[in-house]
């Protein structure tokens, strides 16, 4: 199997794996605890929702126990409460209290219940462990009321709540199967009776296990009207003896009164999204409130969550692959922010709860993976490019002489040091025949690959035009014409070219905008620059080139160089300059060409100090023996 096919297969397997992980993570609610945390946060941050005034809570609180003096107390007090509320015209009286063993005062209570016929009693099922996608099922009762009470109650319902994986209580099974019968939750029963609707609540959104997600209306102390059991009973007693009661009992007219324990040590408390200890009676109130206002919490289906995930993932994937990492990051943050805002709005307005944590996590991961993938690709490309540069350097090096020719009566040395992988400097030393030597040095404007290509073209053309019988200015003229004509780019090259006639001992030279050769005659103290009147850099425009000649003699020194020498700068941004070069050559004039070359390079390096070499350096030293 070829490597490419293997790569494709691996790529497809990787994508499939990633898709399965994504799907699995969403489908199986792997991050359920985090989603629940987000849900709690949304509950806490949402503006207050409508709370009905038709539900009141009557608490057997600390003050009640203090007033009555003992606990559990005589059932006659319950009888009085029932009497009081029945007389006040309460619509329903719901106990979240069990009357499961006989106690004194039972008869009074039974009488009161029979008279009112609007008392609801709770019971608790022992639930079987809930299987996925299955309605809650009971195996037994775990708490019940005495049957005489049950027989005179208006209705009974279970008060089981379901604990989530994080231990908090957010759900209530709307119905429980026991035997062959479906039993309603206490709050559902009370709410349906109150609203006069059927028990079959097909408009109530349920989770996959037919559980209702409680729409918590707010914190316990701030939500619903709360009254003390003791106050109600005391007011009733006062009213019967003609005293002015603490409470006007008429406030209970038409209300659903939920009675439960909240006194220390008696309470039936559960951790809820809004507070760590929330009385279970509050959960009944919240369910009835939801039914009255028809505001429920509905969880988005797994399919819907998956589609949202796919849409977000594809969006971020496309952005991450196309845009720069920074742009894509900005896009990621924007998309995530928009997604969070929409999720919060859906929750606040419609009560729709969609997965938030997992999509945020996945979009972040998609971005990271894409960026990583891209940087690996770039890294590979860079390695390839670096190799190309190395090859280019080798090719370029083949365009300057590997070794200088041996010429009788001449001591020569040359060096070229590129500041980058490939440079723009060029030089050539050609021994045409026994009598003529051509020396050329040049510098292409610009650096890098394009400059090096231009350099190779210049050297090739130079070799073509340079002939022993052609004067340097004529060679430059032809070369300039060709380069100017044939190169579209605005490139140019400065070039200095000289011809040594070994027989006549005459050196003729021409200059196309290059630095002049430094010439130190044997019998002179000062070195001079050998320059001409006319000659633009080559490739710029049509130009005239003028030439000159000098006679040379034994002991004369010629220095050819590029601006890498004279424009070498130190950390103070001073330049090495022509004068420094000149002074050095004058002092070291007696050295051999190779030694003098080393001295100059050493001096330039020393001058630069810690500063990096800025430009290519080319240096040719010729001594006439």
């Amino acid at each position, binding site marked *: 199997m070829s490597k490419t096919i293997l790569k494709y297969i691996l790529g497809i397997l990787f994508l499939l794996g990633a898709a399965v992980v994504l799907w699995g993570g969403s489908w199986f609610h792997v991050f359920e605890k985090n989603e629940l945390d987000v849900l709690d946060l949304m509950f806490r941050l949402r503006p207050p929702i409508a709370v009905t005034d038709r539900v009141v809570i009557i608490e057997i609180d600390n003050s009640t126990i203090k007033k009555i003096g003992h606990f559990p107390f005589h059932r006659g007090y319950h009888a009085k409460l029932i009497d009081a509320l029945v007389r006040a015209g309460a619509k329903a009286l719901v106990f979240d209290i069990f009357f499961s063993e006989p106690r004194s005062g039972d008869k009074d209570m039974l009488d009161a219940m029979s008279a009112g016929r609007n008392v609801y009693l709770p019971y608790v099922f022992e639930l079987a462990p809930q299987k996925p996608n299955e309605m809650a099922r009971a195996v037994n009762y775990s708490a019940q009321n005495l049957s005489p009470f049950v027989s005179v109650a208006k209705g009974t319902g279970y008060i089981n709540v379901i604990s989530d994986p994080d231990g908090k209580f957010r759900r209530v099974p709307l119905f429980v199967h026991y035997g062959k019968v479906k039993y309603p939750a206490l709050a559902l029963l009370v709410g349906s009776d109150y609203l006069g609707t059927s028990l079959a609540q097909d408009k109530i959104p349920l989770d996959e296990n037919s559980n209702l997600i409680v729409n918590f209306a707010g914190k316990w102390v701030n939500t619903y009207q709360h009254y003390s059991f003791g106050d109600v009973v005391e007011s009733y007693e006062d009213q019967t003896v003609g005293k002015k009661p603490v409470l006007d009992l008429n406030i209970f007219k038409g209300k659903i009164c939920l009675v439960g324990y909240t006194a220390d040590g008696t309470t039936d408390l559960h951790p809820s999204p809004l507070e760590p200890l929330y009385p279970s009676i509050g959960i009944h109130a919240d369910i009835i409130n939801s039914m009255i206002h028809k505001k429920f919490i509905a969880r988005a289906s797994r399919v819907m969550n998956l589609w949202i995930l796919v849409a977000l993932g594809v969006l971020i994937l496309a952005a991450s692959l196309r845009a720069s990492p920074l742009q894509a990051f900005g896009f990621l943050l924007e998309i995530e922010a928009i997604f969070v805002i929409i999720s919060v709005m859906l929750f606040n307005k419609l009560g729709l709860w969609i997965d938030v944590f997992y999509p945020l996590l996945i979009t972040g991961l998609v971005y990271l993976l894409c960026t990583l993938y891209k940087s690996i690709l770039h890294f590979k490309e860079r390695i390839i490019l670096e190799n190309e540069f190395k090859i280019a350097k080798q090719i370029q090096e083949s365009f300057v002489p590997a070794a200088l020719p041996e010429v009788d009566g001449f001591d020569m040395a040359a060096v070229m040091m590129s500041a980058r992988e490939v440079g723009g400097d060029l030089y050539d030393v050609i021994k045409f025949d026994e009598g003529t030597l051509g020396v050329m040095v040049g*510098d*292409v*404007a*610009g*650096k890098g690959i394009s400059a090096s290509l231009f350099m190779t073209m210049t050297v090739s053309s130079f070799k073509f035009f340079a002939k022993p019988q052609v004067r340097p200015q004529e060679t430059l003229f032809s070369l300039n014409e060709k380069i100017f004509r044939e190169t579209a780019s*605005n*490139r*140019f090259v*400065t070039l200095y070219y000289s011809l040594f006639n070994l027989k006549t001992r005459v050196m003729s030279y021409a*200059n196309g*905008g*290059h*630095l*002049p050769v430094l010439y130190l005659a044997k019998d002179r103290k000062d070195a001079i620059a050998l320059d001409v009147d*006319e*000659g*633009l*850099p080559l490739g*710029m*425009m049509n130009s005239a080139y003028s030439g000159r000649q000098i006679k040379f003699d034994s002991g004369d020194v010629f220095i050819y160089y590029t*601006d890498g020498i004279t*424009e070498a700068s130190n950390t103070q*941004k001073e330049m090495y300059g022509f004068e420094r070069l000149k002074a050095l050559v004058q002092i070291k004039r007696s050295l051999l060409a190779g030694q003098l070359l080393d001295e100059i390079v050493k001096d330039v390096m020393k001058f630069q100090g810690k500063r990096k070499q*800025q*430009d290519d350096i080319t240096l040719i030293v010729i001594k006439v023996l």
Partner: protein
Amino acid sequence: MDVKTEKINDVALVVLAGELNMDNSNTLRVAFKKILKENSRKILVDFEKLVFIDSSGIATLIEMFQNLGKLNGRMCLCNVNKRIIGVFEVTKVQKLFNIFVTREEALRSFCEAQ
């Protein structure tokens, strides 16, 4: 290097500061292209704050000079320091440019040319 452009009547003034070299000559090229796009055909480059120019910098100036020539435009330089004049002399390009001592002188020359 810092490139600032402004308009004085119909002359586009380009003020350079720092070092014009291989690494930043493209900044100048971009500025020039923008000026041409805005239909300016008279360009004055002020070198007062420019301390150094290398062959790439010269190449950029030449390129501009040639492009403007094709469009019948005109380019002048002013406030060029001695060192840079030296570089121009070595490369023999000083004859190509109209170099003025002061900005005012250069601006006047544009008026006269009209």
